[in-house]
């Protein structure tokens, strides 16, 4: 076996000198959350790096809703799920139709609509929150799940349309011509040619919209307020309202809430990082 040269060892050491702090920096808040989740109440505040008696008791308390703050856990979990899936499906529908219309049917004014959509995409959502809150009040949708779903569709669609338009511009125009020549109607063209070819982008955009809605805090806490209407992140925020909030249960709930999006993210990673986002900053 050839021993590594001194220089190689030096390079490796330098890389480790960067890698170890990066690892610690990344993991500390997440590990801290995990530590609380597996610690019994009396261990949680001991400041140890591993609890003396690790336990799943906290998860049990959350799952069986055995605490005042958690009495609506499952219904809130359900609310989060329904809202995320509905926002994802609706965004897909709205954005696919619009992208098809702009990119394939070359509808007059399509480019203009695209620019308008991009404009809204870049306006920070936090700035739109106050007028959106009032608007939902005017529409009589406050405390109704539809308000959050529609708000999420509004925020997710511009980027969705842009990504789908970019992808569909790459499909050869001869495809449409051939299909039309064979007597396909526009709807058949959409259903039988366009959607199947766009599948990878549709999966990516659907995932993007679902994660966006699942993770949303600001709009959720503005638009929904009843304990049985709110989503999980709002419930987590409500823990803070009390001075004696049970941290270990809050962290356990937070951990459970963070797991599904992380899993989805890693499952669709190759769509999420490269494909979806690199386009936004293409030089």
């Amino acid at each position, binding site marked *: 076996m050839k021993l590594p040269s001194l220089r190689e060892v030096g390079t490796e050491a330098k*890389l480790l000198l960067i*890698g170890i702090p*990066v*690892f610690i920096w*990344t993991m500390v*808040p*997440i590990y*801290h959350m995990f530590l*609380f989740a597996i610690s019994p109440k009396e261990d949680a505040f001991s400041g140890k790096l591993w609890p003396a008696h690790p336990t799943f008791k906290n998860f049990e308390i959350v799952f069986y809703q055995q605490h005042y703050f958690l009495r609506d856990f499952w219904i809130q979990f359900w609310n989060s799920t329904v809202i995320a899936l509905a926002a994802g499906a609706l965004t897909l*529908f*709205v954005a696919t*139709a*619009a992208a098809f219309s*702009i990119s394939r*049917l*070359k*509808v007059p004014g*399509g480019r203009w*609509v*695209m620019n308008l959509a991009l404009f809204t995409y*870049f*306006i*920070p*959502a*936090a*700035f739109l*929150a*106050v*007028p*959106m*809150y*009032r*608007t939902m009040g005017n529409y009589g949708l406050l405390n109704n799940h539809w308000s959050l779903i*529609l708000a999420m569709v*509004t925020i997710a669609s511009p980027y969705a349309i842009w990504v789908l338009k970019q992808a569909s511009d790459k499909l050869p125009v001869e495809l449409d011509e051939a299909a039309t020549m064979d007597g396909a109607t*526009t*709807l058949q063209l*959409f259903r039988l040619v366009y959607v199947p070819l766009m599948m990878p982008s549709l999966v990516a955009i659907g995932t993007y919209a679902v994660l966006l809605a*699942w*993770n949303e*805090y*600001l709009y959720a806490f503005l638009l929904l307020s009843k304990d049985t209407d709110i989503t999980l*992140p709002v419930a*987590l*925020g409500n823990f803070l309202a009390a001075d004696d909030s049970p*941290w270990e249960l*809050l962290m356990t*709930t*937070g*951990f459970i*809430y*963070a797991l599904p*999006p*992380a899993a989805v*993210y*890693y499952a669709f990673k190759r769509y999420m990082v490269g494909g979806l*986002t690199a386009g*936004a*900053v293409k*030089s």
Partner: protein
Amino acid sequence: MAITISGSDSIPGPPLSSRLTTQQVWGIALLAPYLLVFLAFVVYPVGYGLWLARNPASYVALYNDPIFTRAAVNTLIFLVVGINVKMLIALFLSGFFAQQRPWIKWLSVIFILPWAVPSIPTILSVRFMLNPEWGVVNQLIFKFTGDDGPNWLNDPAVALAMAIGVHIWKSLPFWTLILLTGRLAISHDLYEASEVDGANWWQKFRFITWPSMQTLYVTCTLLSMIWTLGDFNSVYLLTGGGPADLTHVLSTLGIRYLRLDQLSLAMASIVVAMPLVLPLVYFMMKRLSR
């Protein structure tokens, strides 16, 4: 128009002009859902918001509110410090993650976690870590020095710094990966040729890496500026704007006014940010619609 449509259905191989019309009708029909969403949830709210902010008196009130001035300064600090520190670290780390090592590959999978998980639980986790009595940070300080640690989130300067830290923690992986894609697109031959010429690492960065990445870096910085302006969670969930409303930024200030039922102030505080936001937004829109 209805006649043309039914006509084109019955005659096989309709003339070009009428087929175009059907296509256009479909085009408008398929664009309609988005246009409806846009009108109902963008145009109407924005117009209504501007109407609420129409009174010049609210701008005077805003100008006289010390919390607004403080928030504007905080926003500026948040932007200047947060973005530059984040982008410089991202640029540096993109070079680190470009190294071909199995363990670095694994580290990059872990490194993306802050971006992949929702921000609420992790920010609350940091908030608990910094709790003066029970938080793990001060417990460790007490254990090793016997002294009580500082009351982290009770000092506005420290609290704002911590909020910037949380913001960087959350968004650093994203920008590192974007810059990494830019780095990996640079031809390897260039580096090999420069090595033959005896270039050191700084010369390689200065003459190969930076020239091919500067456009990307600037675009990323601008985009990050827009997104950082809209970062509500990092400040609101960590400090709640406190202590004594001294750590607000523009994105949380509007919500504060809303909760105090000062709607016209809330809208005015958003409108005054527009001269900063709109040029950036316009620039990014032009960039993407090419």
